[in-house]
């Protein structure tokens, strides 16, 4: 107010509309980046196949994860797409998955729930049961691996299956590694791996199949440091 135009408190002259909009856009950018705990906007070097993105978002929206944990506790959800490779020699090859988690380093992340989504093909036989195993493995070429999850899948038709990996993911994030290497094997009595991406009817020439790219969904919350240092009355 008052009769002198411009900022009363800082004394700067009034901005023209265009300069004001530019300033507001910069303010908005800074506000969004700071609220997302980002120093700068992420640099997107390659696009996720749209079909893989839609599948993951559909699973996210289907409420398997989001409805089970309320998001009011400043939790957020992460969907991480796997880089896939075949580990070993067919028919004994298993599906190698590599996930990246750099952003979460040093952030005291608590994993509230996490699922691995893998697509298992039907072998075309009548409904049958197969044994599915998920291993934590070392770097490619390192044969050491630890069994994380094992369960029996009823295969009626080719479909998605989930494996709960909440604790393994928490242990991995606590160790502050950047790449999580998993191996998945879905076999019926030593047969071929029905969870591998090879050989599915709609795989692309490179062998990877965007329709069925495995992904990991995690519901996480950032620990607040206060709780760590809270003083308790005895």
């Amino acid at each position: 107010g008052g009769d002198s135009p411009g900022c009363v408190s800082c004394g700067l002259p009034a901005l023209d509309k265009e300069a004001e909009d530019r300033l507001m856009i910069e303010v908005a950018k800074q506000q969004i980046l700071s609220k997302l705990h980002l120093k700068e906007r992420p640099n997107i070097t390659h696009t996720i196949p749209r079909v893989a993105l839609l599948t993951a978002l559909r699973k996210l929206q289907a409420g398997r994860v989001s409805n089970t944990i309320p998001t009011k506790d400043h939790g957020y959800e992460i969907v991480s797409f796997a880089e896939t490779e075949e580990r070993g020699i067919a028919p004994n090859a298993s599906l190698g998955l590599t996930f990246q988690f750099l952003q979460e380093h040093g952030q005291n992340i608590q994993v509230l729930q996490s699922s691995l989504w893998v697509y298992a093909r039907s072998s075309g036989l009548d409904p049958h049961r197969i044994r599915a195993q998920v291993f934590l493995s070392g770097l490619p070429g390192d044969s050491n691996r630890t069994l994380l999850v094992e369960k029996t899948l009823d295969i009626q038709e080719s479909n998605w299956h989930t494996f709960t990996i909440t604790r393994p993911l928490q242990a991995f994030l606590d160790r502050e590694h950047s790449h999580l290497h998993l191996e998945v094997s879905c076999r019926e009595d030593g047969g071929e791996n029905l969870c591998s991406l090879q050989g599915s009817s709609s795989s692309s020439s490179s062998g990877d199949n965007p329709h069925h790219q495995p992904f990991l969904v995690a519901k996480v919350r950032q620990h607040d440091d206060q709780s760590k240092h809270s003083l308790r009355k005895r």
Partner: protein
Amino acid sequence: SLRCGDDVTVCCKRDFYIKFKDIQWQDWIIAPEGYHMNYCMGQCPQHLSGSPGIASSFHATVFSQLKINGINTAVTSCCVPTERRPLSMMYFNSQHNIVKMDVPDMIVDSCGCT
């Protein structure tokens, strides 16, 4: 809460919307398409202090005590947000993971005088 027009006098909410496509951010922000960075502006003369509905703030309580006791101070009332809501965002981070987050207190819905 008043919505600001072109000529701003008393405390009101100014709507300001940014489309992510306009600032080339649509490649990493999946949803929403833009951001309502509304803000509060305008004067809060003394007779408007505490309106509408902000008396619960500490500042307003102190201010009204001063007024009730006729203590004439240079304290002025400010035009601030009275209602805010979160912004649900889904974006790619630098590892091309999708992050889905409810960012609290991102959208100003209404303004008032302290």
